[in-house]
Structure formats: structure tokens, C-alpha cells
């Protein structure tokens, strides 16, 4: 679990500089040994990151904390924005209405009549993922999506959602597509099953890989920040922040778009083709 070990000392140095104290610097350095990543707020709390709580060490808990924070932010904002729904929207209500309507229009192109049914699920997915992707850009926060555990959990919900939706809409006829050209059934069944299982894997690995790569690049650029005259930092990683914003948005869109497409494929009648 050390994809870029040779830059560890650089990370430690930067982390130390960011932390600004010797005592915490050690903890930061220890954290940095794990992998190349920017320090999180946990690194400054003087906790032993390798100590296990409920069977996991703090490194493993970190994405869960971050996901919780993202979820809390989303829920609190929703509650606040929709606390008093008015006929003429303004302020936060107008903002969330724009978001919800925008998502509705976006999925409406793919799902058609079923949009209203799946909008809460796909919308939650999109908002959650995009906020988690952005989360890593906040200093001392990490994107929970740079762990495969988070993305796989989301992909598994997608897997179940489209399969259940397919069965609900088409009944047992839904399973017919596993043996589509019937005379090739013995060959097609494993292919279809593998293809089906590949969907959550590809979804989760794509998102995880992109965000991990983006965070790694960002961390690397931060460690390579040159100091003019030894004390004025030149923050050229800012360019990468904009790239990261772009990639985060694209990845969130791709994830939800593909989910919507899977649902639409599962629920439409194959007879019509």
C-alpha cells in the first residue's frame, strides 16, 4: 500500500510545513508513510492513525467519516433549503429547485416516463458523488470516493436497483435477456452474467481510479511546490484544482448517467427492438 514511496519524505516535509509544529509533524509523517496523500484533519488531532477502533484503524475509518460529513452537509442543506416551501421560490429554495429540475431534465432524456420514480435515487447518487469528489479539494478533507469501498457500495446499489427495476417492470421475462439468442444459451448465459457483474465493477473502479489519480496528482503537485527565496510558495497546483473540479463533475455525471442507462435498459421491453 505504498504507490509512491519515494516521495514520502517530501509529503512529510510539506505536511510538517502545513502543520507548523514538530509534535504534529511526526504524526503527519507517519500518516504520509501510508500513501501519498495530503493530510486530513485527523492527522492534526494527535491520534494514532494505526490504532484500531471497532476493527478498523483510523485510516480505514477516514473515508467513512468523510462520507458522513458529506451526507450531513447534504441533509442539513436540504432541510434548511426546504424548511419553508413557498410558491414563489427564492434564495436556497430556488437553488435546490434549479438543481432538482436540472437533474429531472437530465434523466428525463434517458428514462422518460420513469424519471419521477428514479429521480430521488439517481439525484441522491449524483449529489453525493459530486460532493464527495469535491470534498477532497477542501483543505484537510479527503474525497471518500478515493477508496474503492465507497464507490463499490454505490455501484452495488446501482446493480440492485436496475435488476430489481427490471424484474418489477418486466416480471420473469426480464431474465430472458440472459439467454438472448436462445440457440446460443449455453454460451451467452456466462457472458451475460459476467457482463452484468462487470457493470458495478467498472462503475466503481472508474470513479475510484479517477478520484484517486486526481488526488494523487494534486498531492504530488503540492509536494513539488517551489519556494521562491526559500519562503514564498508558488502554488502552481491551483491549475490541477480546476482540472480536479472538472474531472469530479465528469465522473459524477458519468456514474449517474450510466446508472440511468442501466435502469432504462433493464426496464424497457426488449420485444420492441
Amino acid at each position, binding site marked *: 500500500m505504498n504507490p509512491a514511496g519515494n516521495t514520502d519524505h517530501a509529503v512529510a516535509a510539506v505536511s510538517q510545513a502545513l502543520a507548523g509544529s514538530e509534535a504534529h509533524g511526526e504524526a503527519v509523517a507517519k500518516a504520509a508513510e501510508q500513501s501519498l496523500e495530503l493530510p486530513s484533519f485527523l492527522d492534526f488531532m494527535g491520534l494514532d492513525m494505526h490504532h484500531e477502533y471497532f476493527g478498523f484503524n483510523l485510516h480505514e475509518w477516514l473515508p467513512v467519516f468523510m462520507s458522513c460529513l458529506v451526507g450531513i452537509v447534504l441533509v442539513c442543506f436540504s432541510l434548511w433549503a426546504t424548511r419553508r416551501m413557498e410558491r414563489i421560490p427564492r434564495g436556497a429554495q430556488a437553488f435546490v429547485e434549479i438543481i*432538482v429540475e436540472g437533474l429531472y431534465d437530465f434523466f428525463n432524456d434517458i428514462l422518460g416516463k420513469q424519471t419521477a420514480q428514479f429521480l430521488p435515487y439517481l*439525484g441522491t447518487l449524483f449529489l453525493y458523488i459530486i460532493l464527495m469528489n469535491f470534498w477532497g479539494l477542501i483543505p484537510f478533507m479527503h474525497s471518500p470516493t478515493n477508496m474503492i*469501498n465507497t464507490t463499490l457500495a454505490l455501484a452495488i446499489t446501482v446493480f440492485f436497483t436496475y435488476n430489481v427495476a427490471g424484474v418489477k417492470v418486466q416480471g420473469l421475462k426480464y431474465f430472458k435477456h440472459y439467454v438472448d439468442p436462445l440457440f446460443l444459451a449455453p454460451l451467452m448465459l456466462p457472458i451475460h452474467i459476467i457482463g452484468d457483474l462487470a457493470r458495478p465493477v467498472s462503475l466503481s473502479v472508474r470513479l475510484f481510479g479517477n478520484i484517486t489519480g486526481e488526488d494523487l496528482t494534486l498531492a504530488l503537485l503540492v509536494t513539488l511546490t517551489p519556494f521562491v527565496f526559500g519562503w514564498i510558495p508558488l502554488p502552481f497546483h491551483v491549475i490541477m484544482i480546476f482540472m480536479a473540479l472538472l474531472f469530479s463533475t465528469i465522473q459524477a455525471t458519468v456514474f449517474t448517467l450510466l446508472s440511468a442507462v442501466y435502469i432504462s435498459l433493464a426496464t424497457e421491453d426488449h420485444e420492441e427492438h
Partner: protein
Amino acid sequence: MEDLLEQLGLNFKLVFIQLVGFLILYVLLKKFLFGRVMEMIQKRGDEIKGAYEKNENIRGEVQALKAEYEQKLLDARKEADDVIQTAKQKAERAGQEIIEKTRQETAQIKDKGLAEIEQEKKKVISEIRGDVVSISVEIASRIVRKTISSSEAEKLVDDVIKEVGRMKVD
């Protein structure tokens, strides 16, 4: 394979925790964000539709009312025209009648006048005639009473004639 999964940091317990977290988030957002917003949008849409329908109805009513009023206006104008026409005709007829009557009356008066004049004339003539007769009688009696010269007789006749002439002039 195991090694690869570990390298990725895959841990199914954590996957499960994240899954549960996501489901909780889904339930909360469905209730508090999408539910509320979609409900509001739906409500607003219905309201707008209702308002439009109401508008359409009102417009229809207005159209009907307008047509009705236009019809009424037209009727009123026609009626007024009729009234004026009738009044005009009546007035014309009345004028004609008055003129006719006046003319008749005038003619009557004229006839009457003429008749009266005629009568008067006849009366005068008969009176004159009576006078002439009486004068003639007087002349005859005077001639008879007095034997007079022819010149005197002529003078006498002249006088009588003069007298008669004076009477005629009068």
C-alpha cells in the same frame, strides 16, 4: 487476487458500512429534498394550469359578453334608426297634411270670398236696378207731371244719368 484487492484497500465490511450510509442518505434526501421540491413543482404546475384554464374561461365569457353587447348596441342603433325614420315620416306626413289642409282652407276662404263678392255684386246690381227703376219711375212721373221742353228733358235725363253714374261710382 487477494493481494490485488488488498492493494486496492477493498474491505467488504467498510463497503457494507458505506452502503448503509448511502441508503440512509437516500431515504433522507428523498424525503426532505426531492419529495418536497417535486411536490412543490407539481403544485405550482397544477396552479398555473388552473390559472390558465380560469383565464381561458374568463376570456370566453368576456368574448360572449362582448358579442352580446355588440348585438345589443346594434339592435339599439337599429331601433333608434327606426324611431327616427318613423318620426321623420310622421312629421313629413303631418307637414303634408297641414299644407294640404291650409291649401284647402285657403281655397275655401277664397271660394267663400268670391261667393260673397258675387253675392254682394248681385245685391248691389239688384239694388241699383231697384234704384234705376225707382229713378225711372220718378223721371217718368216728373215728365208726366210737368210738360217740359225737350232741352229740359234732355237736361233731366242727363241729371238722372249723372245721378245714376254717381251711384255707380259709389
